[in-house]
């Protein structure tokens, strides 16, 4: 089994509204994939389909299983945070740990307790007494202590301060991830995850507009600081995006050789955020 998730002609309609429009993609095992898209682009729907939470059309295999019919088996290997801050209000920290430890064969209690020790959570604390950020901390501590083969994180750090967000992604990479695991993350804070991603998927209006490894992205997209006198020459190469910084034009090129571009000015790898903005131009037009 080398694909953690593979989709063929995956579609999902809510009434007349098309949420996912016949997409194909493959996520190999052992990767950290960022699924990035604007609001309402179909990210969450795609993930919910993969987690067997909603029915869909087309073909979808997750860890070799069909999430529609084999969800119970699938959940032995898969863990997810579908949305943050949704733990039941009456749940105590101590009970939450006991419960997941009792239910989940892959749960590591000492690991969960170690994560909790790094927060201000107390064992007797109930969810209804926690701030939004603390609920997320508890949820993440529980999920990160589950040794799942596939971890799906839908906006996992919403409501967390930057200190904890940084620490979380660091833990995710250093403590949690290994070559046998696959992680799929969606987030709007792209700049915070781009250094841990191995693969990138852009989704827009229910379609995949970019699916590539970070290495491929680095080869394909180049950003160039073009001085004023070379703007016309640069424009001839059809940049996909252009902005002005301190009087210099910053142009983004797709599939133009780096040697050719370095003649125009200083080249560098674009940030995922810049790439995203360029790709999603006109989304809200």
């Amino acid at each position, binding site marked *: 089994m080398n694909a953690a998730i593979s989709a063929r002609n995956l579609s999902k309609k809510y009434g007349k509204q098309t949420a996912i429009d016949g997409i194909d993609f493959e996520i190999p095992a052992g990767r950290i994939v960022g699924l990035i898209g604007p609001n309402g682009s179909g990210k969450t729907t795609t993930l*919910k389909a993969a*987690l067997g*939470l*909603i*029915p869909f059309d087309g073909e979808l295999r997750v860890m070799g299983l069909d999430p529609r019919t084999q*969800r*119970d088996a699938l*959940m*032995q290997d898969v*863990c*997810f*945070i*579908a*949305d943050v801050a*949704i*733990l*039941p*209000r*009456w*749940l*105590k920290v101590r*009970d939450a740990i*006991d*419960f*997941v430890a*009792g*239910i*989940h*064969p892959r749960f590591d209690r000492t690991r969960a307790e170690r994560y909790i020790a790094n927060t201000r959570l107390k064992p007797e604390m109930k969810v209804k007494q926690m701030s939004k950020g603390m609920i997320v901390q508890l*949820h993440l501590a529980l*999920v990160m202590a589950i040794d799942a083969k596939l971890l799906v994180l839908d906006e996992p750090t919403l409501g967390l301060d930057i200190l904890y967000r940084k620490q979380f992604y660091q833990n995710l990479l250093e403590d949690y991830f290994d070559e046998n695991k696959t992680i799929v993350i969606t987030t709007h804070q792209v700049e915070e995850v781009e250094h841990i991603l191995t693969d990138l998927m852009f989704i827009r209006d229910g379609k995949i507009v970019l699916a590539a490894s970070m290495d491929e992205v680095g080869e394909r997209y180049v950003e160039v600081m073009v001085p004023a006198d070379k703007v016309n020459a640069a424009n001839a190469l059809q940049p996909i995006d252009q902005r002005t910084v301190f009087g210099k034009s910053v142009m983004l090129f797709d599939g133009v050789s780096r040697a050719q571009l370095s003649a125009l000015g200083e080249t560098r790898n674009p940030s995922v955020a810049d790439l995203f903005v360029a790709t999603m131009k006109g989304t809200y037009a």
Partner: protein
Amino acid sequence: MNTMKWLLRREFWEHKGGFVWAPLIAAAIMVVLVAGVVGYGVGADKFQGDSVTVRVNGEEVHRTQMSVLATGHTRTEMANVAANNYMAVGAPIFIVLPVVAFFYCLAALYDDRRDRSILFWKSLPISDTTTVLSKLLTALVLAPAITIGIASAAAFVILLLAGIAVSAQGVNLFAPVLSNINLYLSPVYLLAMIPVYVLWALPTAGWLLLVSSWAKSKVFLWAVGVPLIVAVLLKWLDYMLALYGTTINADWIINNVLETMLLGLVPGAWFMDGGTALPVRAQYGADMLSLLGASWGSLARPEAWVGAAGGVAMIVAAIRLRRWRDEG
């Protein structure tokens, strides 16, 4: 099996208030009231002296003391009645159970959709079948067992208090009552009625869980409103058909179908509407052994099994619906 144990614990954490504290508070109030009355009576000597007075046309013709009346055979008889029937004083506590269980079943598969925590439960390796069954077990087995435990304890304490009151009149019933085996067997007889309760309660529990799993909002309105509207429509239809000299037996449907869908959680519902006759010995008290016999006897009625089958079908439907339900 382990998963079920934790799911039951989970239900207990969330619903301790309804299933433990509510009957416990009812029991405490009863015990305090009885203790107050007994304490006042003993303290003020109200139980002393001429307790039994016979009057004819307002004229006193005979006075005697309890202790004189209650001797030998009478004492044994009194002790026997007390030991067999003391559970009856726990009845108010059993009224709490159907109310709590009704709203528990209605909320069981709905509340976690409303607060979206269903996404957390569904992120764990727990099948929908196990989840729904854990809620059913909680409502139909765990909750009645807890209620029986609390009611038995309360009834026992009240019996002791009554014993103090009677001994203040010079009649000591402690020895014959406490040595009566039925005193200790009564709670066991009650526990032995739980399987009967489960079968008769299945249609109601099934209907409520189905609504709880299906409705997008306003679960109470759906659960109670639909049977009520159906009842009104049936009555109306029956009235119209009566003009043509025919009938669809609306009253029968209302009594047998709609009632079992809403009132099945009431303990002893099988005695309602004279469905199963109360045993003679239980009519003036609550002789537990004869009640137990009559309760198991109620399972000979086909409607018990038809209702249970309907309940099971609705529970299966609730599990199916749960599969594709997420928030909202």
